[in-house]
């Protein structure tokens, strides 16, 4: 067991997979000589050389498409988006090409590749650098969408994503790259579609992923002081989604709050609400509630940014509401 930062865990996952399979390569802006904009690929150029760790031009659509073409010809690309805000430039390639290729070719051209990079707000990066994309991309059949909330999950899930024969959207966070955590020294994989029970409880289920997992844990700690036990679930991969874990938890707690860094409409959270009300209707003792970003572009000022994101003080009253504590 070693203590790794989240970025080190991701770097270790990529390096191991590139060692294991020569068809895996990494391409993106600043991934090689600069060692990665966020140093996730630190040392990889030296280890694998410029034919496998490739600095791209600033052409997200172009090099995303290049990855898709390379995958059609049998390679297994990892395409790094410096941030998913830039990745939006590549949505045509991701949505129209990567996601659809297998289906429209009736199984002839699988696209085994990973698009990865930081997602959502960091800190005071304002409107154009704070978008989350999981809601948009979970909408697309053919894509898998994976998040992680700690170094160990990041490592195990990225390795699985690289070995997956489908295009996988792997969402990271600038705010988590320096996060430290234990990662087993022995190699391991975490299957996609398997959530993680972060904290057991019987009074209310909190569902959160990525950065919001920590928020949920903080909220659970607050309620624990009052004798209320929140069950915190991190689904980790959003497509496929560990629906059973969610349903089973709600069958136990009968109450659910979803915390997501996204806007309310047509989000992953809204999809989970739909699933829950359909499958667990008779189990619910309160409406499923969500705490989301306020529906405004991300402001720059620190206090305003804090106001927009789902922070603990905005989550607590909502949890109280489903507990009928008011």
């Amino acid at each position, binding site marked *: 067991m070693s203590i790794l930062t989240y970025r080190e865990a991701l770097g270790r996952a990529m390096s191991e997979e590139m060692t294991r399979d020569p068809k895996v390569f990494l391409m993106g802006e600043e991934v090689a000589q600069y060692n990665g904009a966020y140093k996730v690929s630190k040392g990889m150029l030296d280890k694998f050389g410029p034919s496998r760790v490739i600095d791209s031009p600033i052409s997200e659509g172009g090099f995303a*498409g290049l990855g898709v073409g390379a995958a059609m010809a049998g*390679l297994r690309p990892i395409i790094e988006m410096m941030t998913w805000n830039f990745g939006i430039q590549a949505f045509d390639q991701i949505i129209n090409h990567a996601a659809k290729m297998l289906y429209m*070719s*009736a199984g002839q051209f699988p696209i085994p590749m990973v698009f990865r990079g930081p997602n959502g707000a960091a800190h005071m990066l304002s409107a154009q650098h704070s978008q989350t994309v999981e809601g948009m991309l979970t909408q697309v059949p053919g894509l898998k969408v994976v998040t992680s909330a700690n170094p160990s999950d990041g490592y195990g899930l990225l390795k699985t994503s690289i070995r997956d024969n489908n295009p996988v959207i792997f969402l990271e966070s600038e705010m988590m790259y320096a996060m430290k955590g234990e990662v087993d020294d022995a190699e391991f994989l975490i299957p996609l579609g398997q959530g993680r029970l972060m904290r057991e409880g019987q009074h209310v289920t909190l569902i959160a992923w990525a950065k919001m997992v920590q928020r949920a844990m903080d909220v659970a700690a607050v309620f624990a002081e009052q004798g209320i036990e929140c069950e915190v679930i991190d689904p980790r991969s959003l497509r496929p989604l560990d629906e059973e874990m969610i349903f089973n938890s709600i069958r136990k707690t009968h109450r659910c709050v979803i915390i997501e860094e996204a806007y309310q409409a047509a989000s992953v959270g809204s999809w989970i609400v739909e699933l829950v009300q359909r499958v667990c209707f008779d189990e619910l003792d309160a409406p499923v509630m969500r705490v989301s970003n306020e529906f405004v572009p991300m402001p720059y000022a620190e206090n305003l940014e804090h106001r927009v994101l789902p922070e603990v003080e905005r989550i607590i009253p909502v949890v109280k509401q489903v507990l009928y504590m008011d």
Partner: protein
Amino acid sequence: MAAKAKTYDLEFLKKLYFELCYYRRFEERVLQAYTAQKFAGFCHVHIGQEALCVGVQRALKDTDYMISAYRSHTQAIAKGIPGNEVFAELFGRYTGCAKGNGGSMHMFSKDRRFLGGHGIVGGQVPLAAGVGFAINYEKKDEIIVCYMGDAATNQGQFHEALNMAATWSLPCLFIVENNRYGMGTDIKRTTSVDHLWKRALAYDMDHGEVDGMNVLTTMETVTEIVAKIRKTKRPYFLDAICYRYKGHSVSDPGLYRTKEEMAEWLGRDPILQLGEYIKKQKLMNDAELKAVDTEAKAKARADEEWADEQPIPPEDAVWRYVYAD
């Protein structure tokens, strides 16, 4: 006839002539089937542009890759997908080359290395760069031909892909099927350069222009280009001048073009040109050429009749191929 002084034997020319006629008759049957409502959706045909497809194919090996846009029925056939499977795909049948999942715009064959017709203008160009990247990565001797329409050269992804292909020396042959109209818009009205090959100048990319209406010229030119790509590993940008007789798609009446313009291009018809050449070489007469055309018509009819008999996909096929195992 602008073909070089090189001579071809009767069998070879007859084959070329047959292919030109076959693709013409195939697309004519496709149009008829469409208007008879035997299938629906978008339908873009190649009538008038057959020479390019036939000429390019003659320059390639089976191991070379090809990728194209949404006007690609005959390119798919040229690359080796049987015409009846293309027809069955148009009819949405389970024995079509994409099992009814693709349709007119999305013909695919992994075996034949035909990487699809694609429906987003310019979207296939970065894909071609990726295939070129993979060829280099695996240190192979193959190339990829990437067809695109003239209007695709105004897409951002086109420029991004050309830049990467040139920067990294990817073995790509980018061919613009320059029929001068992006749907109904004359390319002159939307494009800053008078010749599309000038697009390559920005990337220091080897480039040229070819008379895409003449199959022999095309074949000879492209053969030289392909040899050069294999040798230098550098990409090439080819502006292939051609003309589509029909509208952009079935629903397009083509009102933006004059009768005079059409008459001029009909005079350069690829089938007409090759027929004249063969007759001039005294290898075949009108009756013999007509017999080849009759044979081509019969093949196209057989393709459609076969497709008519094919099964539609089973309902549970809707769930297949969303995700790979």
